[in-house]
């Protein structure tokens, strides 16, 4: 249960932050200057993190994803 709360909580947080970063990407501040926060980078990080969480959620659902069992070796 704890795993589910952490995973889904992270997924929601990353989604929310990603959507917020997306809305800020490419916009200007009210005073006309560029944002100091790298919103594009944050959005990219959120998307990547979200996919990692999705894999973890798949693990929690019972899907095995261990690379050590890959037919072509661990790497």
């Amino acid at each position, binding site marked *: 249960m704890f795993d589910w709360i952490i995973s889904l909580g992270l997924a929601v947080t990353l989604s929310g932050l990603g959507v917020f970063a997306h809305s800020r990407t*490419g916009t200007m501040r009210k005073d006309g200057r560029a944002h100091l926060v790298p919103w*594009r980078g944050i*959005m990219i990080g959120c998307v*990547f993190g979200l996919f990692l969480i999705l*894999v973890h959620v*798949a693990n929690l659902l019972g899907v095995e994803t261990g690379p050590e*069992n890959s037919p*072509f070796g661990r790497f």
Partner: protein
Amino acid sequence: MPHVHNSTLPPRLPQALSCRGGPSRAQRSLTILLFSGLALGLFIAPIPVIRVLGYCLFGLLMGMLALRLGLAVFGSRLRRKLGWVRSAEADQKPIYSILVPLCDEAPIVEQLASALANLCWPEDRLDIQLLLEADDEVTQMAVAAAAFPPGTRVTLVPPGGPRSKPYALNQGLQHARGAYLCVFDAEDCPAPDQLLEAFQVFSQAPDEIVALQAPLIGLVEKDRWLAWQWRLEYSVEFGLIKPALAALSMRVPLGGSSNHFRTKTLRDVGGWDPWNVTEDAYLGLRLARLGYQVGMISRPTFEVAPNRFSVWLPQRVRWIKGYMMTWMVLMRQPRLLAQQLGLWRFFFLQLTFGASVLTPFLYGPASLVIAVTLWHDRLYLGATGWTLLLSGLTVALVSVLLASRFKGVAPWLAILTQPFYWPFHTIAAFMALWDLYRRPWYWAKTPHCPWASGDLSCSTGSSASASPSP
């Protein structure tokens, strides 16, 4: 009724620069050697060979993904700078030629006439040529009945060459009167001031910039999933990737239509290759080989996105076949190509244009592996597989998010289900390979229908990055 005249055969492109000759002897020998060696290796030691292949492919694909992400981010940063302010120079207008190849396009002729009539350019300075096949009487009759701008000419394309768009375009190029020239497709609806922007950019740009590409925006009818996928692709390609390549002075494969040229240079380089089925992409790359550059403008052209698989598939088969042809011609003399482009641009070309040839073949098998293993509640991909999968999904999603701000359920459904669209490319890729072997110069004609959802919003002021409301 437009004035009709017959054309004569235009001069041919040198054999070395044309697709007509097919792969060179060295390319054939190398391909046979490579596949024989691979088959032998797989027979003797399958696992090590697969591992080595996997590592090579991993490095290549990660390079492609990193580059694509870099171009998408750079392209999105450019967007604020891309824009157009009309200056006084735009008031001294030369003759502008417009070529529109038409084949079996009777249903869409009225829409085309209206789109061309909307262009902001003095009628007496506009040289519109409709390029019709000599035996296509239905389209000829439709053209005669439609209200094209005064001075529009019809050029009848004689038989004798491949029945292709570039063959028709070369006929038109012979008779073009303008200092500048633009190509539109039958289904195009260009923004009215596109010619003004192109002319202004040409006037201010250095002579090396000989071609300009306007962004193409797909219009989606009835929120069809396939049409949305097509539009998403276009928004990334024309909104991010091509502007980034142009800004970095890299080679830009011209796309589809709405290409603007300095007419004299286009004639000097021999026009289009009539034997190449993606003549636009090849022309952009050929210009780069000769030291010229392609730029981007911001005023878009709208066209209706294909919404049926039966329309999408032949078009995609032609595109992938054309990319394969183009890559083959370019790589006939790889050392010469590297000398002409420079080593850095040569590798850039391999990672960007090479990707459009290679990746369609990989989507299907990769999806199949994932589907089969998931069916057994396992997804054993190895560290490389996982890295590729997550990086690929991230780059695809980020690119689309950076390309535009889509609103509504249908576009978001399309964005989130993109991975289900990619395997269709593999079907098209293998069909293209077969086509390349059986009928390399066959031009699969994409059927076009008029925009059924009311008036085409040609005059919307949106750029490639914006979301017009279709």
